[in-house]
């Protein structure tokens, strides 16, 4: 429901909702790291890993969807310039990977950016974005932090 509308505003709302749950999750991971700390306590003293789940954002997942007014007769004339501008973003190192959604609703990019605002600025300037025909939802991505669980257990 939260994800169905895609805009800057929605990104922030989504972030807030997710932040509401991250507290609980951080608690869960603290619990894990605490267990691990007990297991290792006699071996070596490590600072309490209160940041057990925290990883830096390294990429952005950008999910582009046609808006309601994007009928094929409207976007088809724009597509050639959209393709060229997208390739330019790739050549500038901003788009790392690109895909088309097979349900024909838009595209998926993995971007070499970590700031959603910067990504929005770039993506909204694409021809389909300028015409209000495509909107992007942005999800910051980082390393798969639960892999830390393997490090803790390997010391047992």
């Amino acid at each position, binding site marked *: *429901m939260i*994800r*169905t509308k*895609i805009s800057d505003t929605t990104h922030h709302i*989504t*972030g807030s*909702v*997710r*932040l509401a*749950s991250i507290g*609980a*999750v951080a*608690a*869960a991971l603290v619990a*894990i790291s605490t267990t691990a700390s007990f297991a290792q306590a006699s071996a070596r003293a490590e600072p309490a890993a209160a940041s057990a*789940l925290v*990883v*830096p*954002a390294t990429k952005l*997942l950008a*999910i582009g*969807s*046609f*808006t*309601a*007014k*994007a*009928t*094929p007769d409207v976007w*088809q004339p724009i*597509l*050639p310039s*959209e*393709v060229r501008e997208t390739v330019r973003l790739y050549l500038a190192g901003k788009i790392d990977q*690109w*895909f*088309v*959604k*097979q*349900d*024909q*609703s*838009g*595209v*998926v990019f*993995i971007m070499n950016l970590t700031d959603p605002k910067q990504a929005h600025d770039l993506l909204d300037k694409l021809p389909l974005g300028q015409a209000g025909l495509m*909107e992007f*939802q942005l*999800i*910051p*991505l*980082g*390393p*798969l*932090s*639960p*892999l830390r*669980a*393997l490090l803790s*257990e390997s010391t047992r």
Partner: protein
Amino acid sequence: MSSQATNPRVHAEIPPTLAAVVGPTTKILAIGSVTAKGTPEAIVPVLPFEVRATVRNHLAGKIEQWFFQTEGYGVVFIMNATSTAEAHELLEKLPLGVAGMMDFELIALGTMAPLAMLIGEPPRA
């Protein structure tokens, strides 16, 4: 989620005229979110098994890329599967999936077909 579930991000009725700009399905984007059942107390004991099963799927070439959502508790996978059903079958067997504590939204991905326009093969109208 059902592999047949509609994509909630589809805003518009897109007629099949786009068929020409869609290539084969090569990857599945899987966006995993914790369900209401996935309370911290419930997840903690399962997580080590979840991680191991995920690594096995990676080593088997099924999960090609994996990420953590840094603004929420969830994961994003890019999977080497050619249908959402195939990906769903793998993901529902993960421990958190079996326990009903994680749901995946699956989006079938294909090659950037519109690039064909740059090599003189514009999509049919």
